[in-house]
C-alpha cells in the first residue's frame, strides 16, 4: 500500500491510519486507537489538548472528532465516538487493523500557557469528557507544571459514564481529586448523586486568580457551571470551554462554522467565557 502524505501541499489530504484497538465505552459509544501507517508521521504528529481532527471513510464522508489522547503520549491517537449518522456508523463497522483516513490537527486547543502554574478545575458533562480527557492526562503527565488538579464529571446514569474503569483508577492517585456524580443512580453507585454543579460544594477553598477552569458538556450544562465558577469569582477569561459547530473543512474555508467574524474551526473550538459574552451566538 502506498502512503500519501501531501498534507504540506494539500491541507485537505486525508492520510491513512490503522485502527490499532477499539472497544465499546458504553452503548453506542466506542473508543478507538488509531496510528498513521507512516511510522515517522505517527511519531512526529503533535497537537494541543483541545484540538480535533477530521476523519474520513472513503465513500461515506468526513467528520470532525476531538482528540481524546494526550500529546505527552505520542504515536497513538485516541478518539471517543458516539454513533450518530453516516460516518460514525461506518466507523463502528470497522474492525481492528482496518484503515481510516485522518487530517489535522485543527483548532486552537486549550491555552496551556495561561494554565501552567495554576490550579486546574476540569468540569465535564456526558460526552464532553472526550476532549477533556486529553487535557486531564496532559496535566497528569506534566504534573510538576501545574498546581492542584480537580476533575469533576457528571453523567445522567451510572451506565452512561465513559471511561469508567480508567476514571475510577484515577481516584487512587493522590495528585488529583476526582469527583463523580450521576443525575440518577439507576444501578449500584458509590459516588455522588445530583447534577454536576452539586460537586462544587465539595471543593476545598480556591484562590480564583490562581485557578483555571475548563468545561465541556451538553449546551444546557454551561450556564449552570459558569454560574458556579462566577460565584467562586473566577475571572471570565480563565474559564475555557470547548464548543461544537457544524464543520466541513476545519480550515476556515467552507464557512460552515462561522459566526460573527470568527470561524469556530480556527479561532475555536476552545473559547473563554469572556469570548462568549463578546461574540453573540457562541453559546
Amino acid at each position, binding site marked *: 500500500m502506498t502512503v500519501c502524505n501531501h498534507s504540506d501541499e494539500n491541507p*485537505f489530504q486525508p492520510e491513512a491510519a490503522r485502527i490499532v484497538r477499539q472497544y465499546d465505552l458504553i452503548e453506542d459509544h466506542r473508543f478507538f486507537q488509531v496510528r498513521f501507517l507512516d511510522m515517522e508521521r505517527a511519531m512526529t504528529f503533535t497537537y494541543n489538548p483541545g484540538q480535533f481532527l477530521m476523519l474520513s471513510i472513503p465513500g461515506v464522508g468526513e467528520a470532525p472528532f476531538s482528540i481524546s489522547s494526550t500529546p505527552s503520549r505520542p504515536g497513538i491517537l485516541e478518539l471517543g465516538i458516539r454513533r450518530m449518522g453516516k460516518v460514525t456508523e461506518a466507523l463502528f463497522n470497522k474492525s481492528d487493523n482496518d484503515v481510516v483516513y485522518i487530517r489535522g490537527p485543527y483548532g486552537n486547543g486549550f491555552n496551556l500557557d495561561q494554565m501552567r502554574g495554576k490550579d486546574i478545575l476540569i468540569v465535564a458533562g456526558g460526552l464532553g469528557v472526550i476532549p477533556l480527557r486529553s487535557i486531564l492526562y496532559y496535566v497528569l503527565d506534566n504534573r510538576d507544571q501545574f498546581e492542584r488538579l480537580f476533575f469533576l464529571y457528571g453523567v445522567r446514569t451510572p451506565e452512561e459514564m465513559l471511561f469508567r474503569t480508567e476514571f475510577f483508577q484515577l481516584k487512587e492517585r493522590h495528585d488529583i481529586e476526582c469527583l463523580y456524580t450521576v443525575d440518577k443512580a439507576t444501578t449500584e453507585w458509590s459516588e455522588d448523586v445530583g447534577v454536576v454543579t452539586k460537586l462544587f460544594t465539595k471543593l476545598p477553598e480556591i484562590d480564583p486568580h490562581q485557578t483555571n477552569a475548563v468545561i465541556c458538556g451538553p449546551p444546557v450544562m454551561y450556564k449552570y457551571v459558569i454560574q458556579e465558577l462566577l460565584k467562586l469569582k473566577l475571572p471570565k477569561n480563565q474559564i475555557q470551554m470547548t464548543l461544537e459547530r457544524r464543520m*466541513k473543512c476545519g*480550515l476556515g474555508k467552507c*464557512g460552515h462554522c462561522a459566526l460573527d467574524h470568527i470561524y469556530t474551526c480556527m479561532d475555536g473550538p476552545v473559547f473563554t467565557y469572556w469570548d462568549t459574552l463578546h461574540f453573540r451566538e457562541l453559546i
Partner: protein
Amino acid sequence: MRILKMQPKFFQEFIESLNKFGTIYGPVKKDGVLKYDRVEAFDEVVFDGERPMIPIKKLFHPKKFDMFHFDKDGFTPDYSSIEKRVIIGVPPCEIHSLLRLDEIFMERPVDPYYAKQRENSAIIGYSCLPGESCFCKSTGTDIVEEGFDLFFVNLGKFYLVWVGSSLGHDMVLEREDYFDENVTHNDIEEYIDWRQARDKMFKASFDFKSMPDIMELSYNSPIWDYFADKCLSCGQCSMVCPTCNCYTVTDVLEVSPDTKGRRERYWDSCMFVDYSLVAGGHNFRGARADRLKLWYTHKLKAYANEYGKPACIGCGRCVRTCPVDINVLTVAQALTEMEVPAQ
C-alpha cells in the same frame, strides 16, 4: 504604474494574441445566456453592459468539482481542471471580489485548488459604466489599483491601458507596436472627464461606512423578523454573490465492487436550513432571522472587523436576484431608518 494608450482598431487583434498566454475566458453570450466561460469567438464577448448573473468566482471556486479521487490506496488530489487562462473583460467590482476571496482561500493554510487557479489565470480588466442596480461607488470598489495584469479603460476614441504586473508587461511586449507610450495631458483630461461622468451615473447608493455600527446596534431589531418572514431560504443570494465562499463536501461512490470514487466539493448556502445543524439535531441557527443576520453580518460588518473592509463589493446581484426583495440596499435602508420597506 505604467499607463499606455491604444487605438481601438488594435483591440481585437491584441486580445486574440493573448491566447499565447493561456486559454481565453470572459463574459460570453451563448444561447442567449451571458456567463463567464471559454471564449470561442471574439464577437461572443460582452465587454461592459449586461453582467453575468453568476459571478467570476465560479472560475476560481467552481460550483462543483472533484477534490480527490479515492480507491483502496487512499485519496489522490485532482487538479485536472487547472489550466493556463487569460480572463478578459473583468470589471473592477469583480476584481475586488477576487481580492476578497483571496483573503479567505489564500490565507494560511492555502486552499491549493483556488490558489492554483489564481496562479494560472491572468486578469485583463475592462472599464464599465454602472447599471441600474450597481452601487460599487458606495462600497469603494468602483475603481481598481491592484489585482489585474492589464486594465483597459475604454474612452471611445482610444483605450488607456494600465499595466499591473510583469505578466501584463510581457503581454504588451508581444505586440509593442499596438501601444503608444506617449499619454498626453489631453488624454489624461479625457480620462478625468470620463471618470466624473461615470461617477454621476450611479443610481443606487447607501451609506456603507456606518453599517458595521448599525448592524451591531440592531442585532435584536424586529426588522430581522420582518425579512425572515419573507425569505424563502432559496439560497439564490449566496449563489450569485461574488464574495460568498461557502461550500460543502460529499463522497460519491462509483458503481464498482471496490471502494472507488470521488470527493466532490460544491457551493452551499448559509441560508439553507440545515447549514448549521450539528449532531443530535441541535441547530444553532434554525431560525431564518438568524441565518439572514449571519449573511448580512458577513456582507456588511463581520468582514470589516477581520480585514478592514466589508465583503460586499456593490455588484447589485442580490438586488436583481432575490425573489422577495431582500438585498443589501433594502436591508441597509430598513436598519438605518428602523422602518420596514413600504410594500
